[in-house]
């Protein structure tokens, strides 16, 4: 460390914008450049996604073929099964959806899209990633400690999660909780940066309504996160003390209350789903506007709708507790609010459809992903309304119907949305175009199996199949041949989908090595990130930050030769 630091000092004045600091791998870990931090988040997120996918593979094999010797894992014990489903959920939400959609794209896009040279607090940004990396390491370590990883579901309801005699994972559950808490700290630090940067670092001339919607969405998501995470951290501290110090906050025998945890968890839990949803919607809108060559229909409408969604998202969380013995009057209020929140969501869908209407659509790979997001998310939203009706939910709760519902929301968000963003901004990130044919093969190879995985799960859920069960052979009503066949269809589709991801990684590799050079603006898009080199140099616009003269979606202006009008062009 000391040595590298002095080495950097000796050529201090060489270039004002050159990057200085430790060399080698530390250079990456110690960078304060928002693009580098975005890459760190992106690659860590992808790596964690692979771990999560591996877990899904293992426990789906066990569900569909009980007792099978899973290739690459071996026999799955009940404890391992619980630990796998728990950590699969935890990883996919907190270590994939959040870091990739919010942190990676937020870090990459916000400064570039608003015409800033970096985040407002670059060092806090770096700290955010380091804490995040630490949290990921703690989580991975927790799988291997004596007793195994935590198996009390990603929602970690006490008393199961609080008492070591019940969950049998003394150390695993504490480390799991610690990892989640660290991860929240990382995103608190990141969120402060996003909000402040958007407020204070915009390019000259950029007014509130000139900000690309994806930036707005990420920032609104950060605000939601900031305002909702506190109670959960409070609850997590109490749970941690219950686990490690033997306090009795959630222990009814000692005057505590287990439902209290659900209260605090879901207060965060529901806004959290909007925290990941909003960036994905923003990405979709931006991609669709570019490839429909049309102005976004109702920019302000979209923005206000999003704000309304954000406000409402604080009013719906008890729909996760309809079965927890909450007051039926409260259940009714939350049924109504839950149904209400689907109104703004539907409005967002109509805005997207109206944007598409009459556009000159180019079906590139990112556009396909964006359209697929809309189509698939719609199914997730509609099934959410079933669950939101508290009467229906008494039956549906904790069945595979719920599971299929939230996979139809989370998968479009975390996977489809990410692929839309990744394929759209890949030229900007790496300076080369992705192969479109391979991209389309990967697209269809992901979308078709995705539906074949989860549609059977809706059917199983309606058939009464409960979640989180190790071996359905132990439940005669759920062990019929038809039910097992549906499970096996889903599992086989999962295998197919996983195999098709190889195409994606292969595509990334060849495109990164030999792809066609992208140039500054391969998609002929308007927003500011396309006005600098690909990949953008340190400081983003070394020759001077851009000015902004108009909104981000001026496509197809009748008086212009070209059908786009970059934000930074005076006329």
């Amino acid at each position, binding site marked *: 460390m000391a040595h590298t630091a002095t080495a950097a000092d000796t050529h201090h004045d060489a270039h004002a914008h050159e990057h200085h600091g430790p060399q080698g791998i530390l250079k990456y870990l110690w960078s304060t450049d928002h693009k580098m931090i975005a890459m760190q988040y992106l690659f860590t997120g992808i790596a964690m996604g692979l771990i999560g996918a591996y877990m899904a593979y293992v426990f789906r094999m066990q569900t569909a073929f009980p007792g099978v010797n899973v290739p690459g894992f071996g026999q799955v014990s009940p404890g391992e099964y619980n630990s796998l489903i728990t950590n699969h959920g935890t990883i996919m939400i907190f270590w994939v959806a959040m870091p990739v959609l919010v942190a990676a794209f937020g870090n990459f896009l916000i400064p570039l899209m608003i015409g800033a040279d970096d985040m*407002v*607090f670059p060092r*806090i940004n770096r700290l955010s990633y380091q804490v995040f990396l630490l949290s990921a390491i703690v989580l991975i370590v927790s799988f291997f400690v004596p007793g195994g990883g935590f198996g009390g579901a990603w929602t970690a309801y006490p008393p199961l999660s609080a008492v070591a005699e019940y969950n049998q994972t003394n150390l695993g559950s504490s480390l799991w909780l610690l990892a989640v808490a660290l991860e929240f700290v990382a995103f*608190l630090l990141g*969120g*402060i*940066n996003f*909000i*402040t940067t958007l*407020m*204070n670092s915009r*390019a*000259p*001339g*950029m007014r509130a*309504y000139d900000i690309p919607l994806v930036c707005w969405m990420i920032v609104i998501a950060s605000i939601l996160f*900031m*305002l*909702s*995470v*506190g*109670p*959960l*951290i*409070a*609850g997590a*501290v*109490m749970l941690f*003390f219950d686990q490690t*110090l*033997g*306090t*009795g*906050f959630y222990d009814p025998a*000692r*005057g*505590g*209350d287990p439902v*209290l945890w659900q*209260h*605090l968890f879901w*207060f965060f839990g529901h806004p959290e789903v909007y925290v990941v949803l909003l960036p994905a919607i923003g990405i979709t809108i931006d991609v669709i506007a570019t490839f429909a060559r049309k*102005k976004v*229909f*109702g*920019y*302000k409408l979209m923005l206000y709708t999003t704000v309304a969604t954000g406000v409402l998202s604080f009013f719906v969380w008890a729909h996760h507790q309809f079965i927890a013995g909450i007051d039926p009057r409260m259940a009714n209020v939350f049924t109504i609010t839950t149904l209400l929140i689907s109104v703004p969501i539907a409005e967002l869908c109509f805005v997207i459809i*109206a944007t598409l209407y009459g556009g000159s659509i180019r079906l590139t790979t990112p556009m396909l992903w964006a359209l697929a997001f809309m189509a698939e998310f719609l199914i997730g939203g509609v099934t959410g309304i079933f669950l939101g009706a508290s009467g229906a939910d008494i039956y549906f709760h904790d069945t595979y119907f719920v599971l299929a519902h939230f996979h139809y929301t989370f998968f479009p968000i975390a996977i489809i949305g990410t692929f839309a963003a990744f394929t759209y901004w890949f030229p900007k990130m790496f300076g080369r175009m992705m192969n479109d044919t391979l991209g389309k093969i990967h697209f269809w190879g992901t979308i078709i199996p995705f539906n074949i995985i989860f549609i059977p799960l809706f059917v199983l859920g309606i058939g009464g199949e409960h979640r989180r069960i190790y071996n359905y052979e132990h439940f005669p009503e759920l062990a019929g041949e038809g039910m097992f066949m549906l499970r096996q269809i889903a599992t086989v589709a999962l295998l197919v989908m996983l195999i098709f991801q190889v195409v994606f990684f292969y595509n990334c590799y060849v495109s990164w090595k030999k792809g066609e050079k992208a140039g500054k603006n391969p998609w002929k898009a308007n927003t500011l990130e396309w006005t600098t080199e690909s990949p953008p140099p340190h400081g983003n616009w070394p020759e001077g930050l851009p*000015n*902004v*003269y*108009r*909104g981000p979606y001026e496509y197809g*202006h*009748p*008086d212009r030769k070209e059908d786009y009008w970059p934000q930074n062009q005076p006329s």
Partner: protein
Amino acid sequence: MSAGSVAYQMEQRPEPVRRAPLVSSGLLGMLIFIFAEVMFFAGLISAHTIVRAQTAGALWPPYGQPRLPVEQTAVNTAALLVSGIVLLLSWFAFRREPSSARIPLALSILLGGFFVYAQGTEWVALLGEGLTMQSSTYGGFFYLIVGTHALHAVGALAALGWAWARLNKGLLTETQLATVAAFWYFVVLVWPVLYIQVYL
């Protein structure tokens, strides 16, 4: 701007200029952080309210658990509030003439330090009387809530100390003082709420 043909009627815009931020970045970042912190304490307060309601009011504090020293803590609370007021004075002093803020700022830190110290001695006494985190949820919440507040107070005092050191070197900027002070106001103002919630 609405969609359709009217959208193409671009309005005339003034030449772009870089505007000064509405709120300086440091202060804004701190405010966002404080919002998250407020929610954190709101979570603790909610938890406390619910668990306390569990006992239907009658058994709070539970049998055999000591009563909290309400009166002594009232004195500490007063010290903390005065510290906040003195910090406000130092802010006005700083705006007039930076070096004149030295004494009020130091006084504010000392008062805050007294608060933390007095609370610490109170803890020692209560531990001696058998109130621990494990002895009851009553004790658990007491140490949890008061303890997290104490941690915040210590952190905020360290930040104020840093500001004071910079002030002595003549390096302190207005934004820095505002940022650090905002956090101290948060620590000061959240305390009476916690006091009412936990002690009364």
